[in-house]
Structures are given as C-alpha cells and as structure tokens.
C-alpha cells in the first residue's frame, strides 16, 4: 500500500494524523512534517492513527518520540490507534507502549484525547 498521511480535527483542540501504508526511512520525513505542522498549528493532543499503516520501523518511533517531546512540556499528549498485532509489538519490544496510550480503534483514541484536551483546558491533569 502506498504511503499516505492526512490530518483532521477531533474537536476540543485535538487533532488526528491518519497514516496509511509503510512508514520507513523514505516516508517518515513526510510524517514528521505533517506532525510538526499539526503541533505548530496549536494542537497539543494528537492521535496518530496507524490503523491503515502496514509497516513501521525505528525511524517512525523516532518521529513519534520527537512529537511527544514537543507536546508534553505543554501538558499535551500523543496517542496511537492501531489494532495490528505486529505493529503494536514494535511499540511493546521498545517499551514505548508505556510512553503512548495505544487504542485498538481511532474512535477510542479520539474520545480519550478529546477528554484529555477538555480537562487540560480546565486546568486538570489527564489520567493517562
């Protein structure tokens, strides 16, 4: 599947970055650019939807960690949606499943981030 990435607003200041195809050395820079644009645009709560991704590698993880480092100091969060056991395993073996909240479906991830964003606007820490 060809690499694709696009964004959408989730409401409450949260955004979604939907990724399809293979994310690797060749395509990760595009993901990084899109994520950077979303964060620069003011979103501190971002769902990276990997439901349509067919491959990720350590470059992908580096891009995601870069996004975490940008939003966390401002109380934000990067969450992942992914139900592919092979891709989830990459997060598990690198222990990054402890860094990201990972949801089976984009709907669950979106709901989580909308809540977190809402709480953040009220000045309440999100229980992640």
């Amino acid at each position, binding site marked *: 599947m060809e690499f694709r990435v696009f964004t959408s607003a989730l409401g409450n200041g949260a955004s979604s970055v939907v990724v399809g195809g293979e994310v690797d050395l060749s395509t990760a820079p595009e993901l990084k650019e899109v994520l950077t644009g979303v964060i620069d645009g003011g979103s501190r709560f971002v769902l990276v939807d990997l439901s349509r991704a067919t*491959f990720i590698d*350590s470059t992908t993880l580096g891009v995601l960690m870069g996004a975490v480092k940008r939003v966390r100091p401002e109380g934000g969060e990067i969450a992942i949606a992914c139900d592919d056991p092979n891709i989830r395993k990459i997060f598990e073996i690198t222990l990054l499943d402890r860094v990201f909240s990972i949801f089976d479906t984009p709907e669950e991830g979106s709901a989580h981030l909308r809540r977190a964003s809402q709480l953040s606007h009220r000045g309440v820490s999100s229980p992640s």
Partner: protein
Amino acid sequence: MTRHVIRLLLVPETDAPARARSAVSTLVGASGDASSVFALQVVASELVKNAVIYGSKAGRIRFEVALDGGLAEIRVTNSGRRIRMRGLRTHRRKGGRGLEIIDALASGWSIESGPHGTTFCVKMTLVDTDESQAPGRGFAAVETGYRRGMSSRKGRSVVPRAVHENVLGTTSG
C-alpha cells in the same frame, strides 16, 4: 535441507529498506505466516536503514536473505568506516531503537567491522503457520527472551519446504 537465498546489491538511498523488505516478501511471503514475514521485514529494513545512514554513500549495500528449514539469516554489508561497539552503545542511549528491535526479534546477531566496511548478520528462528495464527505469536524470540512474555518455544517447520540451495536472483538497484 532447503536453502533459498535472495541477494541484492542496493544503492544507499532511502528506498533501499523497502527493496530489502520486498525481497523478504518474495522469499517468504507466499507460504510464510504474516508475523514471521513482518518480523523478517522489520529486521531487514532496520539493517539496511543503518547501512544507508552510516555506510559510505559512494559504495553499495550487499543484502542477503536466506531460508534454511526453520532458520532465516539476513546479512547486510556496507562499505565505510569501522563501527565501534562503544559507538553502538552511545547510539542506543541517545534513543536509537533499531538495534533494540533487532535484538528482540533475532535469535542471534553479530557484527564484523573493519576499516573497509561492516557486516551485520542476524539469525532468526521462524515458527510454523499453525502456531502463528494466534495474536501475539509468530515472532521467534526463541533464545533471546522476548521481554513481554511471548512464547519461547522452539520453532518447528517453516517455509519454503523445498530442499536444495537455490539462488533466486541477484538484483542491482
């Protein structure tokens, strides 16, 4: 015992990892279970990615993937400076996770590095199709102690099942 091999000569550009993954898919994909194919593709991709990033830009990357019964071996050679183990450890501390992933998925790996280049060799034990149907199974963490409680059973038969050395092709790209 069967030994099927694909060898590629890759230009060190960003599409090289995808070419290596494609070779893995060609060799294993038709009859291999999805988890094993994915694990092999991840390892192949990480090794070639490292060769692209750290190897000589003027040289070529030699990529070889071989299947022999239940064992897979991936060998990636790049020209360039010697890699020092201390450098690898520093890279991991700085957040590089490629080797961490390889370490978790491989049953063993080695590095030979000299003044003219580096060869990474990774061995993986594949599991058979029946075992790999269940979620969370299929990666062979046979001797490495996969951290998250995966099965550590020995792999059994694996694809392909034919039995003679067969070089499927060498591609220059």
